[in-house]
């Protein structure tokens, strides 16, 4: 049995929804946990989102705790935005396989590229910041557990997508030319 492009897109749509819900929960959890620790109950720092113990960081300085959780939250929100864009383009059926090179798809690739660059930047910053905090004697969980790992991968993805967007630009021109060839 041959799987058609339409079926693949349908599967990707369902998968994107599942991942989107997951990253939204993660982003919401991180933000809520940070807010709860800073405003309501500092004891919560010991069981920060997904059991990461940030009590040592909170004891060291609540300001640094805020900065660290802000970096985690920004990266998580950006991840959710990427999946929102994927769901949106699949839901609006902007991916027309008979004429794949369109302005909307190019814009989508550029947006995802920018978001990936942002995630790479903030996670990279988060890793460096965590390393600095460890040097100051603060006991910190692994950056991978704080969802700050893989900055280089995000940056690589961003650059790759940007190159693809440039190829799409030329593709749109060729497609328009082809459509206007009688």
């Amino acid at each position, binding site marked *: 049995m041959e799987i058609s492009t339409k079926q693949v897109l349908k599967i990707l749509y369902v998968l994107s929804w599942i991942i989107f819900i997951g990253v939204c929960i993660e982003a919401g959890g991180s933000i809520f946990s940070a807010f709860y620790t800073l405003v309501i109950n500092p004891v919560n720092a010991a069981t920060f989102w997904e059991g990461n113990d940030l009590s040592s960081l909170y004891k060291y300085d609540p300001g640094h705790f805020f900065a660290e959780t802000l970096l985690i939250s920004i990266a998580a929100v950006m991840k959710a935005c990427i999946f929102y864009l994927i769901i949106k383009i699949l839901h609006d059926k902007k991916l027309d396989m008979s004429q794949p090179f369109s302005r909307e798809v190019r814009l989508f690739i550029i947006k995802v590229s920018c978001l990936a660059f942002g995630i790479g930047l903030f996670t990279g910053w988060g890793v460096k910041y965590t390393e600095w905090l460890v040097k100051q004697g603060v006991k910190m969980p692994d950056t991978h557990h704080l969802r700050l790992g893989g900055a280089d991968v995000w940056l690589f993805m961003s650059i790759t997508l940007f190159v693809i967007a440039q190829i799409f630009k030329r593709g749109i021109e060729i497609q*328009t*030319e082809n459509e*206007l*060839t*009688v």
Partner: protein
Amino acid sequence: MSLNELSEKVDLTLANLSILKTGKAKAIRFSTLEAICKVLDCQPGDLLEYSKK
């Protein structure tokens, strides 16, 4: 000759003929040019014109 008649004889859609007529066309195939010249009994030079914009 009406556009409908020409489109039937040249085997081109009305939409494509309209693209040609309005000057929006980016390129024309030799086969299309040949078919139009054959139906209208003319030379490509009678259909094409260069103008400085």
